[in-house]
């Protein structure tokens, strides 16, 4: 499948944290022919293993991308059949007016809805000045009467935003949940590449659950794998209008994380390899990475970690914007890093 087509499928399949089953199914369908074995963990993460193709398994590397997304659960059904929402993960109420949403009923059926916005003609002066708040957000379920809403939707059903993938100029695309489905796509592309090459280490490709609520999915998957090296691939806040501080730029390459969570040895190797294969690389230092890496790092006896990110504008909105060049460069970098892992862990790191 074409990358963009697959990405549209991945982002339009609902997977609010803790309810990733449907997106996991899409991923499994895509990877089952690309790995030696795969399974789903008790917390819903998908682990795919692509064994060393040289037959000299000298170590285990885990590459993890989270498959969950921010969203909502239904909190209340109002008179008239309107839904009130509670958030899952960091959702900004300021972007919600007049958004389209999908309600995933506990029956398995999906319903379309819109988040209502009072027409300016009907607003009072006070309402005009009010800032949006989650308390006043409501969903109008399209085509269902109040009775039908009450019969088919209940409190606790998940709700996601609806916004198809859109191509912009150059190699840039826009969509919802590119945080972190863009790296889910990168992981699938990585598995495709691994099928064409010789490498010494066993590669565990992980699609983790529940990153947006604190990474229990990645933590427990990493516990199972006990990797010698872990790499979290995620998105990072890209340069954006309205923010003065210098942020990673779109199209200027993947972003390497630096700081106490990240192994200086792995980071150094990645920098060296990027230069060798001519992949542009940007650097970003932080104490906490804000990714699955923070959890993976401390699993079991500890895991040396790297973080590689795709710069993304408008994070946690329905217009998350990335440059596909950065994704392709991320995959090239991961491929080359895995190719060069030819020593044992002790030889390489101590």
């Amino acid at each position, binding site marked *: 499948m074409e990358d963009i087509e697959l990405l549209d499928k991945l982002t339009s399949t609902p997977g609010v944290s803790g309810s990733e089953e449907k997106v996991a199914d899409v991923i499994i369908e895509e990877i089952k022919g690309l790995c030696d074995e795969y399974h789903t963990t008790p917390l819903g993460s998908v682990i795919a293993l692509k064994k060393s193709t040289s037959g000299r398994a000298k170590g285990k590397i885990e590459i993890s991308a989270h498959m969950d997304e921010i969203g909502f659960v239904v909190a209340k059904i109002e008179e008239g059949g309107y839904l009130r929402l509670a958030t899952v993960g960091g959702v900004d109420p300021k972007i919600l007016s007049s958004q389209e949403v999908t309600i995933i009923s506990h029956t398995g059926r999906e319903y379309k809805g819109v988040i209502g916005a009072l027409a300016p003609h009907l607003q009072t002066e006070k309402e005009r000045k009010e800032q949006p708040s989650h308390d006043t957000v409501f969903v109008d379920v399209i085509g269902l009467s109040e009775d039908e809403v009450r019969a088919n939707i209940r409190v606790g059903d998940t709700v996601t935003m609806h916004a198809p993938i859109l191509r912009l100029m150059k190699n840039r695309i826009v969509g919802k949940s590119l945080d972190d489905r863009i790296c889910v796509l990168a992981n699938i592309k990585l598995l495709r590449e691994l099928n064409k090459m010789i490498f010494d280490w066993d590669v565990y490709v992980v699609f983790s659950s529940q990153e947006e609520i604190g990474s229990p999915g990645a933590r427990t998957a990493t516990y199972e794998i006990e990797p010698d090296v872990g790499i979290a691939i995620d998105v990072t806040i890209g340069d*954006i209008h309205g923010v003065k501080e210098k942020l990673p730029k779109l199209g200027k390459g993947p972003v390497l994380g630096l700081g106490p969570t990240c192994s200086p040895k792995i980071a150094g190797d990645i920098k060296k390899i990027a230069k060798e294969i001519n992949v542009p690389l940007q650097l970003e230092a932080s104490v906490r990475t804000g990714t699955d890496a923070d959890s993976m790092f401390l699993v079991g006896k500890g895991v040396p970690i790297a973080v590689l990110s795709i710069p993304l504008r408008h994070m946690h*909105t329905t217009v998350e914007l990335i440059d596909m060049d950065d994704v392709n460069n991320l995959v090239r970098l991961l491929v080359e890093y895995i190719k060069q892992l030819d020593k044992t862990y002790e030889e390489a790191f101590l």
Partner: protein
Amino acid sequence: MSEEVRKRLCEEIGVSGEEYRVRKMIKEEIGSFVDDIRIDKLGNLIALKRGRSDEKKVLFLAHMDEVGLLITGIEDNGLLRFTAVGGIDPKVLLSKRVLIGKDKIPGVIGFIPIHMQRGEEVKVPKIEDMRIDVGASSNKDLEGKVEIGDTAGFSTQYEEVEKMAKGKAFDDRAGCSVLIEVIDALSEQKPFFDTYFAFVTQEETGLRGSGAVAYEIMPDIAFVFEGTTAGDNPELEEERWSTHLGEGPAITAVHRGWVVPKWLFEYVIGMAEREDIPYQIKRTTKGGTDAYRIGTSARGIPSAVISVPCRYIHSPVSLMNLEDYANTVKLAKAIVNTEEGINVR
């Protein structure tokens, strides 16, 4: 009329001043069913359907334009500055998609992520502080593609789910669609009086197109068809609803600057009752329509307003009830085909 026509009509972009695509589509749709069709100096599309009597002239009117954005600047980094065309609440613009200019270049209105908003009060920006991102990395990428003065419309898909329709620009493609259906119905039967169908420009920028039509036609009576506000949401008391979805076409008694002549208001209600069509009387008096411009033209032209109630108008996505829509069409057909004509006072 088919769902397919409504879909094309509502998805087409025609921000005030650049209604040409909508005008072309409507012209193609109705051209072969009318006795005369022309485009006037302000871009209004005027069609005539001759009646059994030429004693009076009746005008049916809907506006083609929709609210949207006007590109006012291109920055060195390729981001676009813009202003609103028509009344748009800035709150509905964040995290939305638009199509820009004649080539419909896609772009998005972004916002700083919630992660960077901690510790400070970040509010919905003013429209002049928002930007459209089309994926360009410099203004050079935009040469020949986007220009200052281009308009941008929302890119929402039209869809019908059960008896509801979802889409953009129901204000006033709903009205345009009603007129097209009436013209369709007249392919087999002449209206009582000569009837003009005007699809006008620039309603949203201050009722600008319709005045020219009034002077050109000098009708004896006018009926304005609109997609109007419905505020029947869980926050609002009933008196603020304006209209309520599912109760039928909304008939206006009075709005900004215009009181519908009592006899005409009663005539429209009487027609709905005679034909057993559900209707509601619009509960609010805010907002104006082309009825003000037509009504106050020349010596004064009796003008009525009949609307399809629509939720969340002037935003990227609105909803209307297709039964209300069908009942509005039914009422319009009853008026145009009335057997005794209209006794204009």
